[in-house]
């Protein structure tokens, strides 16, 4: 049995789709995450996608590509995307890529937290 290093929790409310990612987002996991998230977005067509990163332990640049790809899809359907509560280590790679220029990032951990 393959061990998965991530999980997705999703809930919908008033045009919002809130997705909580767990675990590690790397090239291996990004492949199936991409499919699952795209299926959700195209099925539910949310006005706003909130991606909760608070319990993501690790993310490399494959995760950046995953997030940018979902942002592109949300824009195609006329929606927006927000990243929620990345810990300080996740925020480091998000800042390196200048992600705050492309999408809203809320609930950023203070330095030293997470």
């Amino acid at each position, binding site marked *: 049995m393959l061990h998965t290093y991530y999980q997705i929790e999703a809930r919908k409310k008033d045009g919002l789709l809130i997705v909580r990612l767990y675990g590690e987002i790397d090239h*291996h996991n990004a492949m199936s995450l991409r499919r699952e998230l795209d299926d959700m977005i195209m099925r539910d067509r949310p006005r706003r996608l909130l991606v909760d990163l608070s319990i993501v332990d*690790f993310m*490399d*640049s*494959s995760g950046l*590509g995953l997030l940018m790809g979902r942002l592109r899809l949300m824009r195609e359907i006329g929606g927006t995307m927000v990243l929620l509560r990345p810990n300080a280590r996740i925020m*480091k*790679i998000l800042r390196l*890529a200048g992600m705050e220029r492309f999408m809203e990032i809320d609930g950023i951990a203070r330095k030293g937290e997470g």
Partner: protein
Amino acid sequence: MYNTRKNEINRIDITMPAISENEGKARALVAAFCAELDPTAAELTDIKSAVSEAVTNCIVHAYRVKKGKIYISIRLFADKTVVISVRDDGCGIADVKRAREPLFTTDAENERSGMGFTVMENFMDGLHVGSRVGKGTVVTMIKRIAS
């Protein structure tokens, strides 16, 4: 590069198939071995991130056409530095300078961000890339543990 460093206190050499399932395992192995130098959580994440990028490059780019192996060596030194090399026998990089440019990727259709080398350069304290087309690539990185 970095091969003449003295006062090596420990070393491990790992060979693994270049399959995506091994990306997380490579990170875990490197983190476990580097724990001897007592890094902070942030330093450990920097090292894991850089190794993850180098290993992923092997899988996604070096062995795009044929299967192969990844060779990782981790060397610990008395001055609390770690030198990590990630080597492949894959296709090699024709233009290393261009490959290291932020956002440059040869695999945009698969949502590659082109940030792999940028992460390695920014999260580690030194990076050297050697490559020969048709022969393979060696990425060597150094991290000084400040804690």
